[in-house]
């Protein structure tokens, strides 16, 4: 079936604006992850959803960041009052089996 999809692929916004990033996981995958990757850096864990359990939000860098997953499928990552340091590629991954994560193409966020 289809892989993980993310939208938009690119987002340019002005400092102080809110943005929403969307992730459509692989159908049937119960686990969903959000990561952030700055240029030339590794992946920074943000948040993890597993089935109906409470999400692990331990990686969210500030209260400006939030995420939700509706109906155990699509997820939205929201960044309020964006700052320039929020500029990065935001990656979503889903998993249905042991530790194998399938990644989407990412959303490149640029905050001017």
């Amino acid at each position, binding site marked *: 079936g289809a892989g993980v999809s993310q939208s938009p692929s690119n987002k340019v916004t002005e400092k102080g604006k809110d943005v929403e990033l969307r992730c459509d996981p692989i159908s049937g995958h119960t*686990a969903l992850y959000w990561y952030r990757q700055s240029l030339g850096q*590794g992946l920074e*864990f943000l948040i993890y959803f597993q089935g109906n359990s409470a999400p692990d939000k331990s990686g969210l860098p500030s209260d400006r960041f939030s995420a939700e997953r509706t109906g155990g499928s699509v997820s939205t990552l929201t960044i309020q009052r964006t700052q320039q340091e929020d500029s990065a590629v935001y*990656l979503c991954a889903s*998993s249905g*089996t*042991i*530790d194998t994560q399938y*990644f989407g193409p990412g959303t490149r966020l640029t905050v001017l």
Partner: protein
Amino acid sequence: LAKTTQPISMDSYEGQEVNITCSHNNIATNDYITWYQQFPSQGPRFIIQGYKTKVTNEVASLFIPADRKSSTLSLPRVSLSDTAVYYCLVGDGYSGGYQKVTFGIGRKLQVIP
């Protein structure tokens, strides 16, 4: 969570076999070892996974010693298209259980013509 450490970068010539080693001294009994490959401007892609001894697929081999405190990804006869960042991860192997894993900075492989 078991932490992984990898050297940052390495170069290799086309056609050579490349071995990339990862240390995970605090690996837990239930942890599997998974390797991912990331090309520029793309998300990481699963390469191979193992628990112990040796695993081989069409892309690579994974060698895991008996103490499981390290693992080695082996890429046979690399080509320019293998230039990428390689990540090793360890995580809870329970299907359906808590599967949070943490990516380190990875190891950049540059294949030279």
